[in-house]
C-alpha cells in the first residue's frame, strides 16, 4: 500500500445519503498515482455516486475526499484536478469533434495555437485524426467513446474518472476498446478510476479492484487477489464462476474442516473469520480447480477433497471441456478441464470422482 503522501485519491470514511437511501456506506479507499483502479459492483451498488463525489458532482454526507493529499471540501468539479468520461459520453451534439475536444482548454483561456496543437495530439492518441469536423451523431459508439476520452485527457488531469465508458458498446468492440484504453492509460500515465459492473472487464484492465455491494466496499485487491482469495460470499459469487457446496462447519482453525449434508468430510484452506463450529456454511471452489478421475484413481490424502458423482452434461469449448457432475444428495458441480489430459474425456452418465485440493477451497457464511 502506498503511504499517505503518495495517494492520488483518498476516501476517508465517506457516506452519501439521498434521503433515506444510503448510496455509499462508510467507504475508505486509497488509490495510488498511475494506478488503473476499478470500482466493480452490480447496478445500484454505489459506484457512480462514489465516482461523482470524487469528481465534485456530489458532496459527501459524511467523510472526506482527498486528491493528492488535499481535502476537496466543497470544491466544484472545475476546481478539482480531475476530469470525467461520462456514462453516455455527454458529447456536445452541436459541436464538432475538434470543438468538443478543445472545449476544456478554451474555457481555461489557453492560446488558440496551443489548443490546435494539443487537439491534434489528442486526435492522434485516440486514432481519430481526420475526424475533426465530424459531429458526434456522425460517429460510431466506439468513436464517440474515444472523443469523450480525448476531451477529458487533453486537460491533463491528475485523475481521470470513467463511468462505465464501454457500457454502450457491443461485446466485440468492448473487448477491443478495453485493450486500447489500457494502452492509452499506460502511455499517458494518468490515474484512472474506472466504474464497471462487468467483472471480466475489471479483471482484464485494472491494477486493483474495489468490489462494491449495497454501498459498501467489500474487498480491495489485485485482480488475482479478488479472484483467488475472495473474502465474502458475495465477492466469490460475483467474480468469475464458482461452485458452492452447502456444508456444516466442523473446525474453523486451520486446517478448516466441514461436512457435506450426506456426511462427506471436506477440508478448506480458509474460513470466514466470523464462522463458528456447527453452523451452516458454503464451500466455494472454482470450476477449473476441480478435477475428474475414474473411480478408484486420483489423488488421495489429507490435502485432497473427493466426492463421487455422475456426469450429467458435457460441453466442448475448444480450449477446455465443461462437465456438469451430479453429486447424489448434494448438488451439481461444474468442472472445467483442459482438453488433452491423460484420462481422456468422460462420457455422459459415467461415474466419476471429483477431486480438488484443500488450497482451492474456501468456506463462507452463506448469504441470506
Amino acid at each position, binding site marked *: 500500500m502506498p503511504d499517505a503522501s503518495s495517494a492520488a485519491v483518498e476516501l476517508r470514511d465517506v457516506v452519501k445519503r439521498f434521503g433515506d437511501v444510503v448510496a455509499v456506506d462508510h467507504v475508505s479507499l486509497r488509490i495510488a498515482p498511475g494506478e488503473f483502479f476499478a470500482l466493480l459492483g452490480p447496478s445500484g451498488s454505489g459506484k457512480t455516486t462514489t465516482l461523482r463525489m470524487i*469528481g465534485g*458532482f456530489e458532496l459527501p454526507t459524511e467523510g472526506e475526499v482527498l486528491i493528492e493529499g488535499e481535502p476537496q471540501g466543497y470544491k*466544484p*468539479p*472545475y476546481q478539482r484536478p480531475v*476530469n*470525467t468520461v*461520462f*456514462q*453516455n459520453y*455527454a*458529447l*456536445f*451534439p*452541436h*459541436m464538432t469533434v475538434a*470543438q468538443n475536444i478543445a*472545449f*476544456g482548454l478554451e*474555457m*481555461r483561456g489557453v492560446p488558440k495555437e496551443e489548443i490546435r496543437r494539443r487537439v491534434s495530439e489528442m486526435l492522434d492518441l485516440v486514432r481519430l485524426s481526420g475526424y475533426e469536423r465530424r459531429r458526434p451523431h456522425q460517429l460510431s459508439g466506439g468513436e464517440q467513446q474515444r472523443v469523450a476520452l480525448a*476531451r*477529458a485527457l487533453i*486537460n491533463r488531469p491528475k485523475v481521470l474518472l470513467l463511468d462505465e465508458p464501454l457500457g454502450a458498446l457491443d461485446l466485440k468492440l468492448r473487448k477491443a476498446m478495453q485493450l486500447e484504453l489500457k494502452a492509452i492509460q499506460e502511455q499517458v500515465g494518468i490515474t484512472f478510476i474506472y466504474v464497471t459492473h462487468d467483472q471480466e472487464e475489471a479483471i482484464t484492465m485494472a491494477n486493483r479492484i474495489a468490489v462494491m455491494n449495497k454501498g459498501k466496499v467489500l474487498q480491495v485487491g489485485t485482480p488475482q487477489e479478488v479472484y483467488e482469495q475472495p473474502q465474502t460470499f458475495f465477492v466469490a459469487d460475483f467474480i468469475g464462476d464458482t461452485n458452492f457446496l452447502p456444508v456444516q462447519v466442523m473446525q474453523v482453525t486451520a486446517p478448516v474442516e466441514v461436512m457435506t449434508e450426506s456426511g462427506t468430510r471436506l477440508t478448506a484452506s480458509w474460513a470466514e473469520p466470523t464462522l463458528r463450529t456447527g453452523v451452516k456454511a458454503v464451500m466455494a471452489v472454482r470450476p477449473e480447480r476441480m478435477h475428474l478421475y475414474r473411480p478408484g484413481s486420483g489423488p488421495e490424502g489429507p490435502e485432497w477433497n473427493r466426492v463421487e458423482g455422475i456426469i450429467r452434461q458435457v460441453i466442448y469449448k475448444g480450449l477446455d471441456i465443461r462437465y456438469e457432475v451430479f453429486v447424489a444428495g448434494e448438488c451439481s458441480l461444474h468442472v472445467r478441464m483442459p482438453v488433452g489430459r491423460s484420462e481422456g474425456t468422460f462420457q455422459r452418465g459415467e461415474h466419476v470422482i471429483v477431486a480438488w485440493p484443500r488450497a482451492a477451497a474456501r468456506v463462507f457464511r452463506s448469504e441470506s
Partner: protein
Amino acid sequence: MNELLQRKPGLRAWLLLAPSFLWLLIFFIIPLGIIVVYSFLERDLYGGVVWKWTLENYRRVFDPLYFKTFLYSLWIAFLTAFFSLLFGYPLAYYIATRPEKTRNALVLALMIPFWTNFLVRTYAWLTLLRTNTGLINVWLQEWGIIDHPLPLFGNTFAITLGLVYGWMPDMILPIYAALEQLDRSLLEAAEDLYASGWQVFRRVIWPLSLPGVIAGTMLVFIPSLGAFVTPAILGGGKRLMIGNVITNQFLGAHDWPFGSALSVLMMAVMLLATLIYFRTGGEEARRGGLG
C-alpha cells in the same frame, strides 16, 4: 373496391387524406386565391369588384400613410417577439428545471388564461391601463405616488404589453420543450471542463435551445404582425396596426381589392421573415454559436 385498395396502397392513403385536403382547399386555398385575384382588380362603389386588372392597389400600399403603418406593425411585432423572449426564456428555463410534478403544474398554469376569451382578457387590460379611469393610474394617484396619470394607454407600450401578454405562452412552450429535453449530463460535462455558469449557458444551453427559441419567436412574431384586436382596444384608436387597416378596408371602407393587396403584402412579409429566420437560425443552431 376493396381489391382496388389492396392493389394500390397509395390510393388508400389518398382516400384517407381527402377530407383534410378538401377542407384545406375550401377554407384556405380558395379564399387565398380569391384574395390574390381581388388584389389585382378595381373596386366598385358598393363594396364589390370590377373585373378590370390593375396594379393600382399595390401602388397605394406604398403610399406613406399605409406604409408607415406597415413599418409600425413590423416594429410592434419585433418588440413583442423580443420582450416575449426576454421574459419567456427565463420562465421556460425555470419551469424546465423544476421536479417533474411541479413542471406539469406550471405548464398547466400557463394554459389557464386560454380558458377565457382573448377579447375579454384584452378588455381586462383596458380597465387596468386606461389613462384617467384605469385602475393602475387611479390607485397610484390615490396613494400619492404620482401626480398625473402615466401614459399607459393608447400607445406602443399598451399594444406591446397586450401582445406580449397574449402570445408569451407560445414563446415559452417550445423553449420549455427544448430545455426539458436537454441532457443534464451535458451541463455537468461543461462544468467538468471548466466552464463558468455563464459559459455553460452561452456555449451549451443556449445553442441547444435555439430550435425552441426560433419556433417560439416565429409563433409570436407572425400573429403579432397581423394583430388587430389588441391594437383596436389598447391602441385607443390612436395607434393602428396593419391588421386594423385591413379590417377597415373590408368592413368600413368596402375596398376589398385594396384590403386584399395589403393582406398579400403582409403574408409575403411573414413568409420572408419565416424563411430568413429559419435559414439563419438553423445555421446558428448547427454551428452552436461557435466561430
